[in-house]
């Protein structure tokens, strides 16, 4: 076998005490089709940055084509043949399509205005490779989102790379556009090595011959797509590792369980939201009722956090979105007014206030004067005895479980009518998850409406009354949790996930 084109030798990158990439070693041979997958925060993008030179490793070596490049700046690596695309399209929008490509053609440098014929030919060639030749003279800003992503690939190709890094190329693309992207990647010249990060495992299986799984910055396993899929550790940490089958979505709201007659506390209709112009949610409808836990599950990157944040008012909703709390339309309200109106948020990653003590966190929320205060700080401390002993500690001194309890306590003190929980079990030990499950079930039993976005399917099935699956921007399946517990194959069809030990 030939010598590797790229060799990562125990590469690490730390932010303070946190190692985002932890001693990862990896070989990439010329012409390889290699994919990096892993849950959010696994360090995939950081690893691409380390290879491209936009970040430097804290320790370890990076060998590329016989050179140790770990100290090279990004532009030197680019000239040595490492090209990349970005997680969100990074194009010079005032320029035309072909001018964007010309910027990357070697030898063309800054003289974009006086195009050399040879450079122009190379640029048009790169555009033709991605199927954008007929749009060459268009202003970049007029391209659709999918075309912008393909233009990025053309820009990368124009640099005549030996190694192409693709950072989530399928993010935000519609199904047909994803198919075109897969075709494009498969048609790339075989002398270019491709390293790809993507959440869409259909794309990964279609284009990669080798897959590496990262988890919490560590290398978990490397193998063929089917080997990796069968790996027990991968099944454990990564929810959406298998192929999916074409599934006809059931009508949302139709199977809302026995209490469908009770009016919902939170009613969401046609919720649409996007990131950087790319649509993420394309019409979500859901109801949350008092005394019930509704769970939204879905693959990584399906848009669960966007959904929760849009309901809470932290992410802008696109026009047409209807969010109704107790018959009051709250779509146009600020996050503060929604909090006052009765929406409580326990966000992903907890988002505690750095530097504030537990006691100070609990002193911040003030419920709306018109609403009876449902809980007092005293009752909260009875509910979370661990916090009582840590009143004067700051978030970084708390364990993950205590942080989650504090985030929950902060939300509860405002006396919410509906509680939004975003990945509450993330990073928690199983015993703590059990405690959390008991607390959430208890809250629902006392009349709270709970909307839970969870990656942890076992937890969601355990405590939710009904479960909805978020897939491709919309809810693909909506069913009582009891039915899904009895017939886990239905979830398999949409998510193709293992349902845990049972």
């Amino acid at each position: 076998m030939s010598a590797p084109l790229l060799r990562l030798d125990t590469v690490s990158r730390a932010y303070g005490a946190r190692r985002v990439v932890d001693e990862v070693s990896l070989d990439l041979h010329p012409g390889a089709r290699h994919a990096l997958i892993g849950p959010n925060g696994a360090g995939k993008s950081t690893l691409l940055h380390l290879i491209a030179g936009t970040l430097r490793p804290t320790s370890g070596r990076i060998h590329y084509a016989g050179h140790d490049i770990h100290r090279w700046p990004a532009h030197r690596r680019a000239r040595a043949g490492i090209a990349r695309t970005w997680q969100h399209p990074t194009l010079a929008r005032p320029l035309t399509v072909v001018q964007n490509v010309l910027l990357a053609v070697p030898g063309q440098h800054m003289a974009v205005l006086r195009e050399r014929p040879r450079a122009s030919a190379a640029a048009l060639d790169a555009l033709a490779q991605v199927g954008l030749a007929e749009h060459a003279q268009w202003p970049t800003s007029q391209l659709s989102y999918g075309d912008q992503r393909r233009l990025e690939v053309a820009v990368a190709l124009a640099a005549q790379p030996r190694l192409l890094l693709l950072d989530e190329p399928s993010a935000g693309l519609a199904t047909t556009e994803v198919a075109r992207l897969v075709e494009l990647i498969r048609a790339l010249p075989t002398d270019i090595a491709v390293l790809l990060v993507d959440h869409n495992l259909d794309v990964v299986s279609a284009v990669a011959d080798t897959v590496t799984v990262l988890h919490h910055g560590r290398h978990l396993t490397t193998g063929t797509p089917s080997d990796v899929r069968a790996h027990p550790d991968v099944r454990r940490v990564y929810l959406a590792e298998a192929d999916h089958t074409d599934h006809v979505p059931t009508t949302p709201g139709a199977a809302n369980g026995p209490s469908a007659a009770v009016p919902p506390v939170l009613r969401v209709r046609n919720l649409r939201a996007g990131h950087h112009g790319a649509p993420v949610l394309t019409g979500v409808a859901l109801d949350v009722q008092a005394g019930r836990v509704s769970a939204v599950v879905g693959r990584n990157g399906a848009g669960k956090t966007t959904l929760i944040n849009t309901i809470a008012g932290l992410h802008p909703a696109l026009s047409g979105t209807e969010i109704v709390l107790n018959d009051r339309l709250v779509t146009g309200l600020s996050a503060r007014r929604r909090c006052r109106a009765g929406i409580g948020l326990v966000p992903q990653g907890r988002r505690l206030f750095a530097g504030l003590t537990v006691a100070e966190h609990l002193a911040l929320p003030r419920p709306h004067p018109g609403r009876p205060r449902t809980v007092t700080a005293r009752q909260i401390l009875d509910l979370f005895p661990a916090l009582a002993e840590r009143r004067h500690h700051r978030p970084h001194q708390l364990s993950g479980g205590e942080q989650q309890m504090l985030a929950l306590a902060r939300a509860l003190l405002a006396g919410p009518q509906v509680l939004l929980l975003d990945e509450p079990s993330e990073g928690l030990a199983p015993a703590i998850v059990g405690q959390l499950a008991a607390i959430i079930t208890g809250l629902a039993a006392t009349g709270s409406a709970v909307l839970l976005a969870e990656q942890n399917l076992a937890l969601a099935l355990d405590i939710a009354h009904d479960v909805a699956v978020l897939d491709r921007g919309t809810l693909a399946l909506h069913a009582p949790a009891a039915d899904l517990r009895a017939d886990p194959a239905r979830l398999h069809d949409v998510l193709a996930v293992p349902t845990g030990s049972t």
Partner: protein
Amino acid sequence: MGLSGLVNPYTITALDGVAYGLLLFVIAAGLTLIFGVAGVFSMAHGTLYLAGAYIAWQLADGGWVGLGLALAAAVLVGAVGGAGLAAAVRPLTDRPLDQVLATLGVAYIAADGFSTVFGAEPRSVDPPRALAGSVSLGGYQYPVYRLGFIAVAALIVVLLIWLVERSRTGAVVRAVVADPDMAEATGLRTRRTRAAVLVGGGVLAVTAGVLGAPVIGPAPGVDATILVYSLIVCVVGGLGSIRGALLAALGVGQVLTLGVALVPGAAAFVLAAAMLVALTVRHRPSLAGRPA
């Protein structure tokens, strides 16, 4: 004896440095909170000090009544100035460069106005008669007003640290600094908090002008000097950090008095070097090769 051994020209100068440092703290504490909490880059902060100094010159008559009137006027002018600034930069949210230009423009216009109204020559402001004399410190004469100023400023320091670090108001302010979106989703009034900090910072700066007028009197150019020293204190102390500002202000006070007395040539360099060190060290959270 021990005490008289301690008192020499250098310790007297160092005492001046403490007074100077505390004065800078009272001014810069507002500025550092305005930066850290409201995210506003106010170049008109020295102007507020100068306004306070002219108020003192206008109203102080050597008695307690004059000082009281001047302080009342300072609170009013500071609040109006802070609120006006908040309104002026409101459309410039997230455009720091435009905020700098806008507030710098305000500062220039105000400086021109001050010269027109109060004249271009420096004015001296007498302290209240009760505090006018000097007291003997181990054989050296020291102005009573400066000792009084140190006591009052120390009280302000304690109150301010209590307010920011111990009260619920301070917790709200720090929560808005830490995560404005999440603060909003917890039901906090982030906009009102930011405006309140601008008003509070304005009141502090104008009050400092009234109290500090007998030490650094009103004159054209004082606004620029005060602004530069306040910026140094904010940068060295860390934006938004009250304790950091206190330490930095005391340090700058010593450099500007004791430092100038000991090594006149190097004092300015020391200030610049301190800023450089603060900027380069603080913004490198992890050094390459250091174990995490």
